[in-house]
């Protein structure tokens, strides 16, 4: 069969495919387009039935689609793409490095006061921060299975600015020679430390559970359920407990350091994760008719 691939912006013809097998998947159609248009590699392509229509998944078979009269598909160019893993590694390496630079109390940042004594809370915070980002780097390499291979290149710059910037901003104040230790002293520091460790363990447990949900090399999706790991009980209450635990981690870190920039990072992170969680929650509900009713997106019973 013959298909015309059009640009959704102005209906102009991008490429015309001849002799396409009607039983081929869209992923194969994308490869055919790529053969003629070397600029548009498959990850850059998003195929739709209408100019403003919904993105069609790669697994869809051509002859199951209700193609328009002239056998037309619209191709939205998603722009240059970059692998998720690369983005993750860059965006997590930055805050680790930026924070540790401020932890060394460089004279360049703090001048002659740099030699003032360092409070225990500052050392503990540096360990927590480093642990968190080392854990994320580890998960990126060994735990996560990505269902989409790539994201727009622009995201690399956006995400890195966010993470690197906040790493430097928070590190600057926590490691500042004029840092004021927590108001309630040791009690505040150690109770928050315990909370932080538990939240990190919870976060890791969820990531591991999500990984086990998806068999290697597939894009299969299932309803996530609590496993034998007690930390995963949160799946009973929310669709994205990894985000819930992540928010808890940052609340405890903010309490541990009693640093307003860390609290700002917590709020910004919560907002972003809530948006993602609501999206994923909606997808789960749409995909699975038997999705548990009482489950919320990110905050148990509330949101």
């Amino acid at each position, binding site marked *: 069969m013959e298909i015309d691939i059009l640009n959704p912006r102005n209906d102009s013809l991008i490429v015309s495919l001849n002799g396409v097998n009607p039983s081929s998947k869209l992923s194969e159609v994308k490869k055919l387009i790529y053969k003629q248009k070397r600029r548009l590699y498959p990850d850059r392509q998003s195929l739709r039935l209408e100019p403003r229509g919904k993105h069609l998944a790669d697994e869809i078979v051509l002859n199951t689609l209700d193609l328009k009269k002239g056998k037309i598909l619209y191709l939205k160019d998603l722009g240059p793409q970059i692998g998720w893993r690369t983005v993750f590694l860059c965006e997590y390496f930055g805050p680790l490095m930026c924070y540790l630079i401020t932890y060394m109390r460089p004279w360049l940042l703090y001048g002659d006061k740099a030699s003032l004594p360092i409070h225990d809370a500052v050392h503990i915070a540096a360990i927590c921060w480093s642990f968190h980002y080392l854990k994320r780097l580890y998960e990126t390499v060994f735990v996560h299975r990505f269902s989409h291979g790539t994201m727009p290149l622009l995201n690399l710059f956006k995400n890195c600015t966010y993470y690197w910037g906040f790493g430097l901003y928070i590190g600057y*104040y*926590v490691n*500042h020679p*004029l*840092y*004021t230790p927590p*108001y309630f002293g040791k009690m505040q520091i150690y109770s928050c430390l315990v909370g932080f460790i538990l939240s990190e363990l919870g976060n890791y447990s969820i990531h591991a559970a999500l990984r086990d949900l998806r068999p290697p090399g597939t894009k299969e999706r299932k309803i996530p359920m609590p496993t034998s790991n007690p930390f995963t009980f949160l799946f009973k209450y929310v669709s994205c407990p990894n985000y819930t635990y992540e928010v808890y981690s940052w609340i405890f870190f903010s309490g541990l*350091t*009693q*640093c*307003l*920039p860390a609290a700002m990072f917590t709020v910004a992170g919560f907002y972003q994760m809530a948006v993602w969680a609501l999206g994923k929650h909606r997808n789960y509900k749409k995909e699975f008719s038997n999705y548990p009713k009482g489950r919320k997106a990110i905050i148990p019973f509330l949101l």
Partner: protein
Amino acid sequence: MGKRGEQNLGAKVYLFVYNALQFLGWFYCLLLLLKFFSTKQTNYRQLWKQVELPLTIFQTLQLIEVLHCIIRLVPSSPFTTFIQIASRLIVVWGILKPVAETQTSIGVPLIVGSWSVAEITRYLYYALNLINCIPYFLTWCRYTFFTFLYPSGVSGELILMYTALPYIARRQIYSYQLPNPFNISFQYNLALILLMLSYIPFFPLLYFYMVGQRRKMLGGKEAGSKKAN
């Protein structure tokens, strides 16, 4: 401004009254500026003292436009609307009021003139748009005046901020120092420098957006007879 579809009468009347009120307020500011120049005065502080009250009131009143966006009375984004108003509020509340030395600056007549003329055309345009009777001349003004009002207004704002910097640094206005229990600090003059630098990417962005709007609303260069949609 998109088409205001099926808006109920109450909302229309309210918006009309609001826009008309803003129009009158800015018109009054412009009159004060003209009066100042007609008396051949040269001390801009006199101008500021005369225009301060109405300008502050009507500029600050614009904050309820953010509310208009939130409750979908108008289709714009509340965030964009707020950003547009915020830089001016910083100039009024954060520069001219606390740093009296800036009141003698050439920036004062620049912002009073640019803001008032821009707002007069804008609010008159909005008000008449609600009753669907915009003369072509007004559309032309709204999409032409910005070509010089926008650069002159921005120049005025930047001049005022720049003038204020040394005084803010010396008096530590609005600054919050370490050590403090929140472990955060704020340097107002540093924030102002960042704000001024942000004009570099945003000014061309907005200017060329307006150039695009102008092309859309007024058509080709010589299309004097073409009606605005």
